[in-house]
């Protein structure tokens, strides 16, 4: 069905189609609309799920963990401080190999209080063992959420998955949305280690170093296998529903001398900047990084690269710029822009490309930095 929706409503619509058995969530701006919509679906009988109105995000993830290992598909949503508050359980969910799907509406962290988009919240969960995808449109928020369940629950993966969308910029924008009849796209939830009282097991007991290392390695092995699973699921999705995605969304990159790498809505806005630059005779392209974990292999050889980081690792640099540098050996021009919802237009992005100085870092909007 073709309609319009906000990014938040699109996520909720995908959750409705995926029919989780249990949803446990705590409201936080700008994610609240997702849980409100889901609570409404459940109350109205449009979604036969059990909605647990927990008292905190820590408990939201704990309840998802209990439900997921109990044997049902599970979803939650959060943002910013909520994600940080559940951090302990975010790690636990991955170690417990539970395919929980979470929408994280990216938002900056206090102080001072700031409710607008930034990727630092998601990146602070970088090393938890969660798959992370960043979306750029309302349609993609819907599609990625649907695919998230299939990827996470695949027996080669069995890891939780975080769908990231920019706070307000995407969560609250109204765009067109085509919802689909998913048919048997999502198989019934099957967790090989779901709790079974006929076969009682002790889950996650005290574990010695030698065994612990094996289980950590299995997370990494599954993360590596996830690349192929993601590609398979995205291919099947394209065949069934006609919309295709990849690890990156490349725009006019074939003959580009300089490529802008950005994530989320800035990655979409960059495409407009590329058109402007091309009109001015600058052979630029853009590569919107969709998957952050597992991190994809990027074909950037022989190009100049401008990385826009809507995040920062203090005392080190932009997180994406660092990833690009270590993965490709290319010294990018690192632009720190869009923190706390800072307005970054396509004209600004075009200027980043025009004024690039590879190997250096610039904070957009800061005049006195060294």
């Amino acid at each position, binding site marked *: 069905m073709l309609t319009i929706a906000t990014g938040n409503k699109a996520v909720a619509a995908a959750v409705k189609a995926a029919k989780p*058995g249990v949803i446990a969530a705590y409201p936080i701006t700008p994610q609240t609309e997702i849980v409100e919509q889901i609570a409404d679906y459940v109350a109205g009988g449009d979604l036969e799920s059990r909605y*647990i109105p*927990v*008292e905190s995000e820590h*408990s939201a993830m*704990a309840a998802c963990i209990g439900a997921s290992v109990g044997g049902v598909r599970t979803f939650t949503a959060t943002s910013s401080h909520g994600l940080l508050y559940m951090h302990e*359980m975010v790690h636990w969910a991955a170690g417990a190999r539970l395919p929980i799907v979470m929408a994280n509406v990216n938002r900056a962290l206090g102080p001072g209080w700031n409710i607008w988009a930034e990727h630092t919240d998601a990146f602070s969960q970088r090393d938890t063992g969660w798959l992370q995808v960043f979306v750029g449109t309302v349609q993609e928020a819907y599609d990625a959420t649907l695919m998230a369940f299939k990827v996470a629950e695949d027996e080669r993966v069995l890891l939780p998955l975080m769908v990231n969308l920019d706070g307000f910029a995407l969560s609250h924008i109204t765009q067109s949305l085509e919802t689909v009849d998913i048919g048997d796209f999502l198989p019934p939830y099957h967790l090989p280690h779901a*709790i079974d009282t006929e076969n*009682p097991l002790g889950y996650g007991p*005290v574990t010695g170093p030698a065994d612990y290392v094996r289980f950590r390695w299995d997370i990494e092995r599954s993360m590596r296998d996830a690349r192929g699973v993601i590609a398979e699921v995205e291919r099947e999705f394209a065949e069934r529903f006609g919309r295709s995605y990849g690890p990156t969304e490349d725009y006019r990159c074939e003959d580009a001398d300089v490529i802008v790498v950005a994530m989320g809505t800035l990655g979409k806005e960059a495409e407009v900047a590329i058109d402007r630059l091309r009109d001015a005779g600058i052979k630029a392209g853009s590569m919107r990084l969709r998957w952050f974990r597992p991190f994809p292999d990027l074909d950037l050889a022989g190009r100049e690269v401008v990385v826009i980081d809507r995040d920062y690792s203090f005392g080190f640099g932009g997180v994406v710029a660092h990833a690009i540098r270590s993965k490709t050996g290319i010294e990018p021009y690192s632009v720190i822009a869009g923190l706390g919802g800072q307005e970054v237009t396509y004209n600004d992005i075009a200027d980043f490309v025009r004024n690039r100085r590879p190997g250096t870092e610039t904070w957009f909007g800061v005049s006195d930095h060294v």
Partner: protein
Amino acid sequence: MTNITVRSVTNLSAIPKEEYLYKCTSACAGCSSSLCLRYVLKAAGPDSVLVIPACCTSVIQGTYPGTAMSVPVYNVAFAASAACASGMSEAFAAMGRETNVIVYAGDGGTVDIGIQALSGAFERGTNFLYICYDNEAYGNTGMQRSGATPLGARTTTTPGGKPTTKKDLDRIVEAHNPPYMATACSAYPLDLYKKVKKALSIEGPKFIHVLAPCPPGWRYPTEKTVEMGKLAVKTGTWILYEREYGKLTINGPSKAAMRKPAPLEDYIRGQGRFKNVSPEILNLMRQQVQQNIERLSREEAGVC
């Protein structure tokens, strides 16, 4: 010589013979929590799951790949047990399963770090049983104070004796108006068994608070574990009761104790943690016992 095989073991006849705690756990010798868990599991039966936060029981079950427990045990982070149980209980309900979900948590994971999740689960009406086995300190990590450590007790973080009183967990839980709540003590395992049975027959959030004396933590000889629990009850320090849909019933052993409590010294004298308690503190402890007895007596008599 008495032929014991033909003589009936009368006081055990009502209790299932099955042991869900295999020989043997890595609990300390004389551990009352192990004793409690035996009876909890006998009452709950095999279609039950234990959700366990970080606590002594995390260790008692044994190290991977073997476990001493023959029901599923879900280990979860310290603050998370009640919330995890909420999710599990809802999942089972969604699947039409009637499996018992039982949190078995220490006092630290209950009165301190886990109290928010506990409160949330009770407010939401989660269908589960929460059992707090209370050894009045962080036992697993070597006896640091918890919110449940009583006034005057020495722990590794209150070397001069705890200057403040034990948090009244039961009154916090009571404020949630659960359909069933009870206290129990490891020295009365059959009473605990009956309470677990009754709790599991009721829909909604149930709570049992079990006093679990701890030989290394309280510093008494291992063989005194049951004796220590009985003294807690006989001195009125620990009162056995049930509150069903708000109606309080004082249980047998405490009825007599409340009328004429044994001297408090009988209980604390044998515990190294109360060594050198000042007369002032002892007096305060006595007052607390008396106040608690009076409060529960008034409630049972319908005088509030």
